[in-house]
Structure formats: structure tokens, C-alpha cells
């Protein structure tokens, strides 16, 4: 055990993994009510830190969504029931934003997952200077989102951008063109590119962590059986990675659904509102228009949408777990 880095205990091979986690807790069975008290004590700081900050504002935002609050001041505002929700749901701009957000979420999450899977394989592969490669791959994740947005805006600048310079000089395009300003759909795709460039590395590392727990022996056995690397990937790697994939999907979907910073920096929601996402629209409603109730109801609709997505993933996960070996 003297070898650095401190190795994590060998993972239990899936074949012998206990059916229920409770069995791994012999302590747990011995203990009684004292554990509950200790648990409460240990969890109290975390609860304070999180709920002390979140609970009151979240509750207040929910209440606000049922009133018509149009200024930041305390005071009496008319109770309007669900009107904010019905009104906002009837607003075309919301549905446009939902479209953009859905597209952004689906495409960026899917790309990050597919590329991340490949990248994770590569990170695990026996290449020379692997430490260097891993260090390179982690870079985009560490780059602050605001800087990432500013960087891509500069690269894609219509007048001076290096993307234009490169493509024009390689004769891949006739002349300088606009990437972020002319065609809303193209601009949205460019935001996706910037997001995928940054977040694929996070996905890859999350998946790599899972990849490392798959016992080598399984691959050896597959090879003896005559399975090639592609077959091994689909028969062993993918099924065993399903929980990790589900986890990454949930994390990335939630993040992508809440996307704000990168849009704020790269396009400001334009052109022709073509990159306005739900959160960006919420921000405009709440702050720029001072329709706090409308913004709050939008935020809660977002929460509901995210919850539904999470439930969907959980269900898919359960199903696929039944199918895995």
C-alpha cells in the first residue's frame, strides 16, 4: 500500500455485489435510536448551511408566484391565484424559449455524453504521457464559464474572429461570415459548441471514474470468448456504465436546462431572441420587466420540468438496471 496515490479499495465485482446495501452495514443493524440522534447531529450543520439559505427564499418565491408583485418592495399585492401561470403559459415568447432550451439541452447533453464516453475510453486507454493527456482534458472544465463565453465570442467574431480567418484562408468558406449575429439557429448551435467544448471533459471524468471500477477480468474473459473491442464495449462497458451515465445525464440535463451565464456572455439572447433560454427569459421578466410574480412562476415551472425529467431518467435507469447482467 506504500505506492502513491492512495488506492481506493478494490471495487466489488458486479457479480458478487450485495443485493441490498443494508447488508454492508453490520453496524447499522446493531444500533438503535442513538444512531438517529447522532445522524441528526451530524446532518444538522449541512441542513443549516443549505436550507437556512434556500428554504425561505424558495418559499417566498412560490408565494410570490400566486400574487401580482410588480415591484421589489414589500407591501400588499393582489392575489391572482394561478393567473401568472396561465398567462405565462400562453406567452409565445415562453414557448420559443422552451424550444431553444429543449434543443440546447438535448443536443448539448447528447453530444457531451457521446463524446464524453469516447473521451473516457481514451483517458483510460494505455497511451504514452497519459498524465499529460488527462491534464489537458481537464482544462476546459476548469475554465470559468464567463471566460469560456467571452473566448468563443472572440473566436467567432464576425469581423476579426480567428474562426473566420482560418476557414477563409483554408478556402473552406468564401468570405468572413457572422456566426452569432445573423442566423438565430446557427447562433444557438454555436452556444452548444461552446458548452460542449467545456463540459465534455466533466462528463468524461465522471464516466472515467465509473470505468475504472469495471474489473479487467471481464474484458479478458470477453477476449477469450473472441469478442472484439467494439463488442466488448457494447456488451460489458456500456451496461456496466449505465448508472454513471444516468447520473451524468441527470446532472448535465439540470445544468443545461438552467443555462444562463454562457448565453448572457455570448449572445445576450439574440439574434432575434433566437438564443433566449427559459432562464434567460425568466431573468428578463423578473429584473428587466420587474414582473417578479411572472418570473417566480416561470422558475417554478422550470423546477417542475426538471423534476419530471429526473423522474423519467430514474425510470429509465431502473429499467435498464433490470436488463444489465
Amino acid at each position, binding site marked *: 500500500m506504500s505506492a502513491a496515490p492512495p488506492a481506493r479499495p478494490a471495487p466489488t465485482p458486479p457479480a458478487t455485489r450485495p443485493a441490498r446495501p443494508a447488508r454492508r452495514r453490520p453496524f447499522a443493524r446493531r444500533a438503535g435510536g442513538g444512531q438517529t440522534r447522532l445522524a441528526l447531529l451530524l446532518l444538522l450543520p449541512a441542513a443549516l448551511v443549505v436550507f437556512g439559505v434556500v428554504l425561505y427564499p424558495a418559499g417566498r418565491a412560490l408565494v410570490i408566484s400566486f400574487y401580482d408583485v410588480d415591484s421589489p418592495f414589500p407591501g400588499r399585492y393582489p392575489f391572482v391565484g394561478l393567473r401568472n401561470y396561465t398567462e405565462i403559459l400562453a406567452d409565445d415568447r415562453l414557448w420559443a424559449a422552451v424550444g431553444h432550451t429543449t434543443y440546447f439541452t438535448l443536443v448539448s447533453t447528447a453530444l457531451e455524453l457521446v463524446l464524453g464516453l469516447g473521451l473516457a475510453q481514451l483517458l483510460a486507454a494505455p497511451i504514452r504521457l497519459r498524465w499529460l493527456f488527462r491534464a489537458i482534458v481537464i482544462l476546459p472544465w476548469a475554465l470559468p464559464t464567463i471566460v469560456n463565453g467571452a473566448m468563443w465570442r472572440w473566436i467567432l467574431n464576425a469581423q476579426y474572429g480567428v474562426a473566420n480567418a482560418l476557414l477563409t484562408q483554408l478556402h473552406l468558406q468564401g468570405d468572413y461570415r457572422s456566426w452569432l449575429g445573423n442566423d438565430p439557429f446557427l447562433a444557438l448551435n454555436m452556444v452548444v459548441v461552446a458548452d460542449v467544448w467545456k463540459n465534455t471533459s466533466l462528463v468524461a471524468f465522471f464516466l472515467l471514474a465509473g470505468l475504472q471500477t469495471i474489473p479487467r477480468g471481464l474484458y479478458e474473459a470477453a477476449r477469450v470468448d473472441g469478442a472484439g473491442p467494439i463488442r466488448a464495449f457494447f456488451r460489458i462497458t456500456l451496461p456496466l456504465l449505465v448508472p454513471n451515465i444516468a447520473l451524468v445525464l441527470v446532472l448535465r440535463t439540470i445544468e443545461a436546462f438552467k443555462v444562463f451565464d454562457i448565453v448572457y456572455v455570448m449572445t445576450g439572447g*439574440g439574434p432575434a431572441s433566437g438564443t433566449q433560454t427559459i432562464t434567460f427569459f425568466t431573468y428578463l421578466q423578473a429584473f428587466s420587466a420587474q414582473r417578479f410574480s411572472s418570473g417566480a412562476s416561470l422558475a417554478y415551472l422550470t423546477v417542475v420540468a426538471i423534476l419530471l425529467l429526473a423522474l423519467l431518467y430514474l425510470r429509465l435507469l431502473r429499467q435498464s438496471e433490470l436488463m444489465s447482467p
Partner: protein
Amino acid sequence: MSENMSELSRRRLLQLTAVTGAGLLLAACDVGGGSDTGTGADSGAAGNGEGQIKALFMKQAGYSEDDIRAMTDEFQKKYPKIKVEPSFVAYEALHDKIVAAAPASTFDVVLIDVIWPAEFGSKRIVTDVTDQFPAEWKSDMLGGALATAAYRDRYYGVPWILDTKYFFYNTDMLSRAGVDPASLSTWDGVLTAAQTLKAKKIVDHPLIWSWKQAEALVCDYTQLVGAFGGKFLSDDGKSIAFNTGGGLQALEFMKRTLDTKLTNPNSVESLEEDVRKIFSDGQAAMALNWTYMFNAANDPQQSKISGKVGVATTPSGPASAPGVNGSMALSVSSGSRNQKAAWTYISYITSAGVQDKYAKSSLPCWTKSYDDPTVASTLPQVVPVAKKQLANLIARPQVPRYNEISQILQAELQNALLNRKPPKKALDDAAEQARTLLA
């Protein structure tokens, strides 16, 4: 998480959501806020006129951060009992910061844009200072400046930064093309000049504008609406008027300059700074921009065309030649506990003496300053033009929900400029969405 996930039934998650929701409801006892601080003290006379005040400024254009700190230092020397703490945010964050800070009364003095008095006044985020507003200011300040902080005949602040969009041109390019700058006094003349410049291959795209989906787009549009004799609202202010007449012609004009490639296509993703950059790099011959571009484009450090910058009043259309009112004012926030001191501070830094001293950064709001030789000598080319232009300004609609209307308008203007809708349809759609926001 899968361990937790896989054993988690949907019911449990729903249950949890319900429990959390109920908890949240309990946590929230009132709607707007806890205590009733802030809104009551709207008389503009809170505080004893001494002590500390906080002021919120912006980081772009107009007076620089250094200017403001210097003014503040001079103020404190004169009023040692008042201590001023200035803060600076980007213009893009200014509105939201004022809104978020209002209930907590973080700032005593806030800088507001000309489009906000209706909103901030009607929501009582800033104080009505009409009663403190000296009668002589109303006669001594330029009309355009006075309108900056006014809404429905009440004053919600003191004008401080007076600005409009001037017409800039590259004298070198014009003389090479043989275009007489005097012909640029009308938009028709500008188009002809642009065609000549383009035909003689002096510049690919003679015109550059700030038509990104932002307030800058509405500013350019407003100036053209004025030129074509259009109106944003009907005279009674109860209905939308920009989708007919001059409002429509203005947009059609914009679209035409794009279609004929006289306008740089990158205009639709440019802000004022991009306009300055492209103009200063000699990649455009003509542009509308705020006063600051004159100094910046003449600064050899950041410009390739220094010494070749011409400035004029905005070209006229069939109707007239008003400049968009792009001024800003200083207001006392309604929650301030030291409104007296705040007023003293505002009165000082908006005074003619202080404004004259820093005229190089931003032209004064006072009529008499323009005859002051020291002011005139700071920007000899601009001041005579400014004197003329500032007498003829057009305002964007003064309505409490201006921001929302502007957002809708920005999006629809871009729809037309990007060929996604015919101009008429785009403006009709904008009018339809904005209709309910006027009430």
C-alpha cells in the same frame, strides 16, 4: 446516487416534493418583504444632511470612474460632514442592480437612464424631487436634459450626462470618393455617398450601426423614426403607432441599406463599441454614435483614422433630424435614510461648475456652458454641432413598462433585419404584443 436512485420510487419523490413544498409555504409568511422599510420615506427629506451616503454609477461612457472619484473628493472637501462611497457596475447590470437593491436601500444615490424614470418613478424606487427642483434649473438646463428625469411633469432626478447620437464620417474616405460632407445632411445624401464609396471600392461597407438585439438597436431606430416623422405612440399615449408611417419607413430604410450591402452585415451583432472599433479601423466610412466616439476615434493609441474624423448633426429624413435622447440622471433612492445628504451631493456634481470642468468626458446639461469658451475649447469640433443637435431630441416612449416594450421591439426589429419577417409584419407583431403593456 444510483443506490439511492434505484431504490427510490416515484411515489417517494413525489411525497418528498409535497413535503418540501408545504415546508416552503410555511416558511413564507408574507408576499413582498418582511418589514415595511423604505417605501414610507418618500418625502425626499430623510436624514439630517450629514453622514455617509452610497452612490451607484456605471463603468461605461460618459464620465470615467476617475472623473467621478475626483468630483467626489472635491465634494467631500467642501462638505466634510458627508462621506460618499461610490460604486461602479457595468451599464448592463445597472438597472437590475437598482431594482435588487431598492428594498434594502443599499444606495442613496443612483444613476438612471433616460428610459427609466417612468418605471422607477411609478414604482417608487426613486424619489420625486419636483419640490426640491429649483425653478431656475428648469430654465437654465437644456430642454433635452430636463426631459431625462421627468415623467408626467414630475422630476425624479437631476440630469447629469447629456448625450445623443451624432453622425460621424471619415473625412479621408469622403475626399477620396469626391463626396462633399455637406451632402450628408440628409439620409438620401448619405445613401448616395455610400453608393459612391462602395462603387469606388474605397470601403466594402460604408455604413456601420449598432443593431444588436439590445437597447442600442432601439436608439438607432428611434433616431430614424424621428427622421421619417414617425411616432412610437399615438398622441394620447394610449396606442402603438410605430407600425405605421415613419416608424415603418425607418425600418424599411434600415433593411434597404442592409439589402443593398451599404451597411456592414455585422451591424446586427454590433454594439456602440463595435461600431467605434470598426469605424476607427477604417472599415466603415459613416456611423451614428454617442459623443465619446469623437475623442476615441481621434486617439492614435486606439484608432487608425485619428485626425480624419468628421462629426455632424444627424442627417435629416423627410420629416426632420432629431437625435435620440440618450441622457442619464442622478436620483435619490426612495429608501435612502440620508436623502438630504444625497440631494446635496447630487446638486454639487450636477452643477454647471463641476460639469464644465469635466466637459471633455461628457458635455454639460446647462445652456450657458455651451457659450463658455473653456468648454467650447475642450472639444472645438463637437460643441457647435452639439449645440444644434441637443436642441432637437426625440425621446423613446415614456411609459412604466418601457423595458418590456423595448425587448419586444428589439426582437421584432431583428426579425425584419434578418429577413425572417417583412418589416410591416414584424412591427405589427411587435405592436400586438406591446399593446397590453401600455395600460
